[in-house]
């Protein structure tokens, strides 16, 4: 036996399956075409895009949590708020912004029809006493004041005289008439009546404005209109009404003007959520008043963010929480997932080696 015979014997070994069977089995066992890198990139891109969208959704939900009840103009709708005062973080209960134990006399909103006259210092009307009077059509005088005691207000009232049909403030003072107009009741404005929080001067509850931010006098059709924002310890003053928050009596802004403000009472304290922007009609008048029957011992100021944070747990829906968890896990494991995908793609390319023939024989 030589090499030729050996090879021929070897070539005829085994039982032939036949061309048809081999062909058919080859058709069955054809390897899957290699996955194109493009599809891998598409999958990866879709994955990253999903993560980004999810992240944006979470971010959107996070930023909207406290403002879910806010209309588009950025104001807060208080009426829909359910709030548990016990959830308010303790530090905010102690945030006073320097106001402690302020006695607030109830001062009803004045104003109404008739003539309004306001006296104050000409150069800075609210850097000192402000005295106003409303002469009603019946001739009755209703006076008010800011930064003056009750006795001073009464004294100023006594010094009012009508000379030749013109009201004048007699006596020794440095006040000037800065507004004098008739409220016909037809104009679309509210007169600044007041009020705000005050201290006590000579034992009398006294309206007391810490700061007046703005005074504007506009002469329109013979009518002077004031626009006043009184600042009480750096907070905007506001008109309030009684509300109940989580069963606790409180007061909140009314009229949709001092939007964003809310004040509530708890444990002998009133809490004030400040308004970031004082809202008023163009050229209109600021306002602040406390219902006459109310008497608030102290004012603590709660930050708006704290208020919104306190609302957060109750405004999150279950599916929002689930979304948080799912995307949180995805984002946390994102690097691991990417490394895993790369690793498995490499492994797969090693396993699925291309068929040996690389092209037609040379």
């Amino acid at each position, binding site marked *: 036996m030589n090499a030729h015979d050996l090879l021929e014997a*070897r070539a005829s070994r085994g039982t032939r399956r036949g061309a*048809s069977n081999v062909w058919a089995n080859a058709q069955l066992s054809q390897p899957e075409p290699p996955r194109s890198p493009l599809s891998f990139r598409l999958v990866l891109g879709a994955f990253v895009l999903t993560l980004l969208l999810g992240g944006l959704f979470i971010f959107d939900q996070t930023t909207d949590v406290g403002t879910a009840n806010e209309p588009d103009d950025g104001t807060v709708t208080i009426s829909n708020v359910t709030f548990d005062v016990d959830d308010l973080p303790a530090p905010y209960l102690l945030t006073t912004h320097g106001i402690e134990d302020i006695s607030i006399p109830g001062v009803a909103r004045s104003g109404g029809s008739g003539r309004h006259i306001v006296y104050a210092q000409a150069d800075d009307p609210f850097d000192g006493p402000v005295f106003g009077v409303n002469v009603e059509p019946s001739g009755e005088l209703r006076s008010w004041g800011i930064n003056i005691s009750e006795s001073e207000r009464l004294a100023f009232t006594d010094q009012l005289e009508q000379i030749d049909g013109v009201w004048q403030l007699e006596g020794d003072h440095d006040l000037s008439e800065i507004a004098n107009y008739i409220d016909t009741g037809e104009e679309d404005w509210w007169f600044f009546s007041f009020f705000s929080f005050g201290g006590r001067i000579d034992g009398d509850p006294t309206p007391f404005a810490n700061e007046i931010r703005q005074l504007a006098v506009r002469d329109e059709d013979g009518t002077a209109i004031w626009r006043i924002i009184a600042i009480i310890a750096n907070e905007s003053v506001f008109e309030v009404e009684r509300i109940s928050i989580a069963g606790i009596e409180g007061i909140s802004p009314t009229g949709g003007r001092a939007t964003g403000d809310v004040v509530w009472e708890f444990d002998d304290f009133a809490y004030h959520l400040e308004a970031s922007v004082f809202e008023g009609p163009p050229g209109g008048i600021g306002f602040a008043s406390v219902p006459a029957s109310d008497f608030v011992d102290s004012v603590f100021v709660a930050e708006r963010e704290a208020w919104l944070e306190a609302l957060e747990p109750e405004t999150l829906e279950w599916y929002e929480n689930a979304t948080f968890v799912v995307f949180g896990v995805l984002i946390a494991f994102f690097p691991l997932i990417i490394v895993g995908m790369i690793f498995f793609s490499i492994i797969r390319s090693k396993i699925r080696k291309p068929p040996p023939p690389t092209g037609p024989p040379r």
Partner: protein
Amino acid sequence: MEPQMIERNGIEPPPLGRASDFELFEALYPKLRAFAAVVADLDVDPDDLVQDALASTLARHELSQLDQPAAYLKRAIANAASNKRRKAGRLRSLLPKLAAEDVRVDQYPSDTSFLDELDPLDRAVLYLSDVDGMTHEQIASEIDLKPAAVRKRASRARAQIRKHLESDQAESTGGTQ
């Protein structure tokens, strides 16, 4: 003549568009099968090797599109045989206990088993040279080797066979004396 298709495991005959491929393969099959039987180790079924080579080829080309389908398939068979041998060797090195035993099963026991000591490509070269009567240049073109490499492989394989046959002959002579 229409190819006689055997329906197996629900496999339908090749689609019409590829009928020419099947006819081509059917014509090449006897030589491919013989070639596979030579280059494959004894524990590898030659038809499995042909089938693997055909499947990988069909995944990329239609046979009728190839300039030299026979050569292409032979090269694929030779590569497949080398791959199987390499994988088997790797497995034996990873599993030394199994390697100690002869894990290879000779499906078709014969006196040609010592050919497994040769490299599959060496066997391919020798087969194409001695049985098919191809020149070294033709073989080089057929299985994508350089002519010098073909010559070297053929020479080495012949020397090994000669040595083995001489050894066998010496043993049989010694046995009869």
